[in-house]
């Protein structure tokens, strides 16, 4: 009797699944067009899932194995169920294979169940608490139902009361797995996630690549389109798809410095609010941590309503430091920072509502090419006694030293001077732009003002075009990122290095010699977000420190998991209040290592960490440390006579 009902049930559920999928697809397609290669994307999808995504999930070994067993078991079981029970293929071996896959799935589901017994706060509850039970039901039911086909039990098995129990199990299991997948249940992630991997907006990220530069905004205001994202449908369609892939695992939440500081931002909730927006409705069903200080249940939105008018508050968007910790951690490879900056663009360019000192900073950038409104003709004053060749005179050099806005700040000038000392000691052929340099546009862009970013970038590119150089080197990771990853969209292609990489080269090439640093006590190193996660430069700074004989006491959150200092994304300018300061929390991370000195590679990090009240470990840029340990190298005889 059961055998005759199952095919119909299967067909029915699959039809409902397909209908749900089509509706979901139509929701995504309400977004803006974005060219993707459909075929190539779909072909690449299995590899992206099995290799790239697994690579991220694998940071949590237990969970990774759990997922492989459950998901793999489910996909295989489902295919076999369709063959064995749907089409009624009379093969003992297929049925036995099905028994095996349901067992695998069942074991995986047990681990899911175990994790849900005492779930960490980052995990969403609600329907997600039901999922392990549904998985167990599905696996167990189809195991029992398939026993006769596998020849383990006689054919007549499964009648009477047992049949009804099994039927209920089948309906419950298929309901969660198929109906839920199409109609926004927890299993939606499998369907949306697979397509998201196939049509990801940054396909360069797969296969070990990196893609971190923000996308260029089309500044054409004559076509009636709003600039930036006002409504959910202003996102590209594949961004909407990406939001739907979220599994509410909360790994992003656990990493977010703004969330930890009690600022009103939670990247997981933000993505879920985007899902509410794209589908329409309220956040009443959201069962995870809220934005700190804001109750759940008051947000509502629809695809054509302005997001910041009821769905997400403006402070939420401005709390983000663009540190990319969430993106780095997200097993579904969702791009939170892109979405946040897209919405900021609307607030700044269309509404003129950049908070804090944002408006003033942008005005300064427009009128003086630097964020604090300093006289652009005083940009090179810091180097008055440095005797650095000017590009405008020299025209050609091996290395162009990009100074960045640290030129105006006395603390940063110490870093700049140290670096110049190193360059000179190594006899590097270098020059700088002096007053011709402008702000890279980093801050303007993170504030959502892509017009000012593009204006600054284009003028910088025009200036750079006049000169010949092999490489650009800078002590500022933010400028580094802009020049390297964001200028190419505007026609500026350069080889850009962070100063630690050049120093490392100089040490390795014997151009400079360093004394061992023995007086510093315990030393730790803080990875700047824009150097590490944005550009993958984790090794050069550590190698340089090692060259000075330093054994690093690493923080728990270092490398790709480094915690932001709080200085990125124009956060100090918009200054959204929280319960703690991010810099204080980072200093606590540093203190935990027992460090007396924290080495950094960014003037912004230096400023943020030195802003923490004493007593605290000392803060020094690697350039400063290296400059202090330089050992005179024996010069060729002829030169020594002159000296």
């Amino acid at each position, binding site marked *: 009797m059961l055998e005759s009902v199952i095919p119909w049930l299967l067909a029915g559920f699959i039809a409902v699944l397909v209908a749900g999928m089509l509706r979901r697809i139509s929701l995504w397609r309400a977004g803006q067009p974005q060219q993707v290669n459909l075929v190539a994307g779909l072909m690449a999808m299995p590899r992206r899932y099995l290799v790239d995504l697994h690579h991220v999930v694998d940071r949590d070994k237990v969970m990774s194995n759990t997922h492989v067993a459950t998901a793999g078991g489910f996909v295989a079981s489902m295919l076999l169920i369709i063959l064995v029970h749907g089409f009624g293929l009379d093969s003992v071996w297929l049925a036995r294979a099905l028994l095996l896959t349901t067992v695998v799935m069942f074991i995986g589901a047990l681990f899911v169940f175990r994790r849900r017994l005492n779930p960490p706060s980052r995990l969403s509850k609600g329907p997600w608490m039901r999922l392990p039970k549904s998985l167990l039901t599905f696996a167990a039911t189809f195991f029992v139902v398939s026993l006769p086909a596998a020849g383990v039990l006689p054919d007549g098995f499964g009648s009477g009361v047992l049949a009804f129990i099994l039927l209920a199990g089948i309906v419950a299991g298929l309901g969660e797995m198929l109906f839920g997948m199409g109609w926004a249940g927890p299993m939606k992630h499998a369907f949306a996630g697979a397509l998201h991997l196939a049509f990801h907006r940054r396909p360069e990220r797969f296969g070990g690549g990196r893609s971190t530069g923000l996308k260029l905004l089309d500044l054409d*205001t004559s076509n009636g389109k709003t*600039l930036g994202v006002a409504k959910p449908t202003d996102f590209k369609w594949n961004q909407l798809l990406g939001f739907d892939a979220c599994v509410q695992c909360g790994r992003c939440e656990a990493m977010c410095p703004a969330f930890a500081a009690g600022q009103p931002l939670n990247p997981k909730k933000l993505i879920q609010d985007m899902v509410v927006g794209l589908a329409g409705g309220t956040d009443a069903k959201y069962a995870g941590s809220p934005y700190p200080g804001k109750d759940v249940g008051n947000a509502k939105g629809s695809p054509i309503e302005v997001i910041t008018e009821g769905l997400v508050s403006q402070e939420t968007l401005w709390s983000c430091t663009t540190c990319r910790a969430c993106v780095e951690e997200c097993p579904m490879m969702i791009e939170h920072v892109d979405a946040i900056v897209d919405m900021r663009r609307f607030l*700044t360019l269309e509404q003129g*509502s950049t908070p804090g000192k944002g408006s003033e900073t942008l005005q300064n950038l427009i*009128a*003086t090419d630097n964020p604090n409104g*300093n006289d652009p003709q005083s940009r090179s004053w810091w180097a008055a006694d440095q005797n650095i060749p000017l590009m405008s005179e020299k025209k050609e050099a091996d290395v162009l030293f990009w100074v960045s806005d640290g030129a105006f700040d006395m603390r940063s000038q110490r870093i700049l001077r140290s670096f110049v000392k190193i360059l000179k000691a190594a006899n590097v052929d270098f020059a700088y732009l002096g007053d011709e340099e402008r702000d890279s546009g980093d801050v303007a862009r993170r504030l959502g003002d892509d017009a000012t970013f593009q204006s600054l970038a284009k003028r910088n590119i025009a200036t750079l075009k006049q000169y010949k150089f092999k490489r650009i080197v800078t002590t500022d990771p933010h400028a580094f990122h802009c020049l390297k990853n964001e200028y190419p969209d505007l026609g500026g292609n350069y080889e850009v290095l962070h100063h630690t990489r050049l120093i490392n080269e100089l040490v390795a090439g014997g151009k400079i010699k360093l004394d061992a640093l023995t007086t510093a006590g315990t030393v730790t190193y803080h990875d700047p977000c824009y150097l590490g996660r944005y550009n993958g430069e984790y090794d050069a700074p550590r190698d340089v420190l090692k060259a000075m004989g330093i054994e690093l006491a690493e923080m728990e959150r270092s490398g790709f998991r480094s915690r932001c200092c709080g200085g990125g994304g124009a956060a100090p300018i918009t200054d959204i209040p929280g319960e703690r300061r991010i810099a204080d929390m980072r200093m606590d991370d540093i203190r935990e290592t027992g460090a007396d000195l924290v080495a950094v590679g960014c003037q912004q990090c230096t400023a943020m960490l030195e802003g923490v009240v004493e007593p605290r470990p000392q803060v020094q840029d690697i350039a400063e440390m290296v400059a202090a340990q330089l050992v005179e190298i024996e010069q060729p005889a002829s030169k020594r006579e002159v000296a």
Partner: protein
Amino acid sequence: MSRDSIKSPAATLASNLNSSTGQTGKPLTITTLVSVGQHPKSGRARVADQDAKALELALSLSAGKGTAAVGKGEAGAGKSQINLIHAGTATAEQQLVLRGYLGMGVGQMRVLKQSDGADVIPVLVDAVRKSGSDVVLTGSRAEAGEGSGMTPYLVAQSLGWPMVPAAVEITAVGSGEFEILQALPRGQRRLLKVRAPFVASIDAAAAEARQTAWAAGQRGALEHMTLSSNDDAVLAEAAVEPARKRPKRIARAKKAKTAADRFKAATAKSASKGGAVLVKESAEEKAEAIYQMLLSQGVLKAR
């Protein structure tokens, strides 16, 4: 008397109306004259600070701040309307700056194109007259060009309207009357009651202007009108040379031991001189002393 004329930047006029003037029942029209400013450090053209503050005042007045008191029980009845007008050479670079005013939330600006060095007062006066304005607002002094600070006075004179200098807040209180908070030296304030129409120049101490939304500025319309330029006879005769910095008067600290003492001495207000302390005198005597003081300061006019 010197005429306020333009070298390169020019005065612009924005007018914004949203409330009713009460007596006639017609909507209130506020006109703001704005110019192209100059950044003090970089010397680059920019939205002029005081003019932007004047437009901010106009916008908040039009947004209903104080409109409840406008007219008799007809609050918000009149639809406000904003006209922005600029007179000047309006070069391409300057037009980019003018869009900064549009980005504050005004849909269009009339740009009265004038030749370099022309006297813009006549065209501004003409434009204000035709606009049917009740209130004309502008910054106190242009940031570039002649910068004599005479524009509001000369416009008011030509129109025959009163002129209120150094306004920091304007509130409509009904029946065509407005309360203007005026900035006096050292942070003092004075509240004036003025009947429309009037001209007011805005002090740098007024509320910060709202942020410019770049896209709104791009979409806003600059309506160009080329008008015949009036020669500025005064400026033609004048010789222009860069301003010299006047040395700041610093009080000499006699025996200042620390930097803090020197700072205090250099920045301290001069103690008020004269005056009297009346404690035991009768109430009439005290009142008479105050009355005489007000007379001598010109706050009150002798009957």
